[in-house]
């Protein structure tokens, strides 16, 4: 009787091994092929999930205008993107952070930084909550777990539910540095969500929830609303002028000087003509950042 059970178990195991192997072989071939074709007018990029929607849209528009080019945009996270561009397995590594933060000095030095857009991060709450404005101090106390009820900051008597992103998230890093003064979030009383989409869903479902997402997630959003910090609303206009300081650069890294198609694609994405499309997706156009904004940000 054990024999029967055992053989069944092993059959299942064997089958899954074979499938996994086949999968590995196929994906292996796929990436190899794309690499070889890169010189012929194809381009692969991977990394930041925050930049991915913009990169994908730009890639679609770019290939519509240049039918011979083919561009593949993958996610995977900033760390993955930087590692892969450093290895040479992709042409462009998308990242929310500077390469120096995720790679060692030698690897980072070999990469060339192209700042392609800015991303504004907003604290978000459920529209039903009715809280529209928080001071930096209140925001910091909420995210560090010192204030736990909305009534303490002028809202209804409702438990505050923190919804955050993983410690390695680029959005979280920006929010931590520019919105709550570098304080560590209270991760022992916060729900952690893998991606901004899930965070938005959680805030939608829970009246007392507060989280933070990039402005691109608030485009056409009805149920979740951004919170003004010290009276300044999280908008692109306020980001450009330097009033709203919770933003960061989105980077595209290439290994050394970009090849022809990479350069063409990056130039296309950062051109003045394309700025309008960039803004439509909720990102900030790099060419519109005022000197004041850039200076404020460096402080």
């Amino acid at each position, binding site marked *: 009787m054990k024999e029967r059970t055992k053989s069944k178990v092993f059959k299942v195991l064997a089958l899954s091994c074979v499938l996994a192997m086949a999968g590995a072989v196929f994906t292996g071939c796929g990436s190899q092929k794309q690499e070889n074709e890169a010189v012929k007018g194809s381009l692969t990029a991977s990394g930041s999930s925050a930049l991915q929607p913009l990169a994908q849209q730009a890639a679609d528009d770019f290939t519509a205008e240049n039918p011979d080019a083919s561009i593949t945009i993958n996610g995977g996270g900033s760390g993955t993107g930087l590692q892969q561009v450093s290895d040479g397995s992709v042409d462009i590594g998308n990242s929310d952070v500077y390469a120096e933060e995720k790679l060692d000095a030698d690897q980072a030095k070999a990469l060339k930084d192209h700042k392609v857009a800015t991303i504004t991060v907003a604290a978000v709450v459920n529209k039903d909550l009715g809280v529209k404005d928080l001071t930096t101090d209140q925001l910091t106390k909420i995210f560090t777990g010192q204030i736990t009820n909305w009534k303490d900051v002028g809202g209804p008597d409702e438990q505050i539910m923190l919804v955050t992103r993983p410690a390695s998230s680029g959005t979280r890093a920006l929010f931590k540095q520019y919105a709550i003064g570098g304080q560590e979030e209270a991760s022992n009383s*916060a729900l952690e969500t893998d991606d901004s989409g899930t965070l938005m869903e959680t805030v939608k479902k829970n009246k007392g929830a507060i989280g933070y997402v990039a402005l691109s997630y608030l485009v056409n959003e009805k149920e979740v609303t951004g919170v003004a910090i010290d009276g300044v609303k999280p908008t692109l206009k306020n980001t450009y002028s330097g009033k709203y300081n919770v933003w960061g650069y989105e980077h595209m890294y290439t290994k050394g000087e970009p090849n022809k198609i990479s350069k063409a694609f990056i130039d296309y994405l950062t051109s003045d003509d394309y700025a309008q499309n960039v803004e439509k997706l909720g990102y900030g156009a790099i060419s519109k950042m005022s000197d004041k904004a850039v200076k404020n940000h460096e402080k």
Partner: protein
Amino acid sequence: MFKKEYLGRGLVTLCGIFIIALTLAISIFLLIKGTDVFRLFHHSVGEFMFSDKWAPMDVPGQGGGKIGARIYILGSLMTCGLALLIALPFSISAAIFISEISPKTGSRFLQPAIEIFVGIPSVVYGWVGLTILVPFINEKLHAPMGGYSVLAAGIVLAIMIFPTITTVSADALRAVPDSYRQAAYGLGSTRWQLIYKVSVPAAKSGILTGVILGLSRAFGETLAVAMVIGKTRVFPKGILYPTNNLTAAIAADMGNTANGGEYNAALWAMALLLLIISMACIVIIHLIARSGKNS
């Protein structure tokens, strides 16, 4: 003749060796990667297993953070334990129904229904859990963190491991020789007495194999659990509170952490721990099978 005989044989052998080599390669890779945090960053295994302080550095080559993964480990243990607690009564009952009480209905309707369960992708379980279970726990049981909880994860996992345990147990029960049953009836036992005094004890090792297979599936399950557990890095005050587990923590941070950094290394150590757990499960299954044979 030579071609007919040796070509196929050679091919099959080659595939077999390839699989063994692949398993070994993955294990060795994980062993090297997973011990980085202890070798390069000089953390102790004790800190990793028994400390709650988790703040690894995310810069290549830079150590000095804290890598206590106890909350993740306990989170995995708790959700899997709860899942087993929920699934086991149902699984054993279903297995008994299929094999002893109503073999015809069992094999015609119940077994296929259960096998469909196995094929449902985990993201579907997670999603259903997220849209039905989590709000339900929030509204009916007044869970403090919106319903994301150990309970939600336990229930989702229980549904996922239920078919595994049931099918393997039913097979084991069916394999109990009919002579046992005839002997029991001959001695005047009722059907229920036969079931709980003869069939189930005789199929014990097979049922245990099913339990451990289910458990190892539960340990490795990532997506469905990650969607409903809440991923709060704290020891839960009860089953209505959220916590985090090994797989969800790895999945959340693996893409964004710096390669060669302490954070990344700590995640690899967690991956190694998962491999060790699943290997231990396989060893236990073999031991059970062997002891079953001996008795």
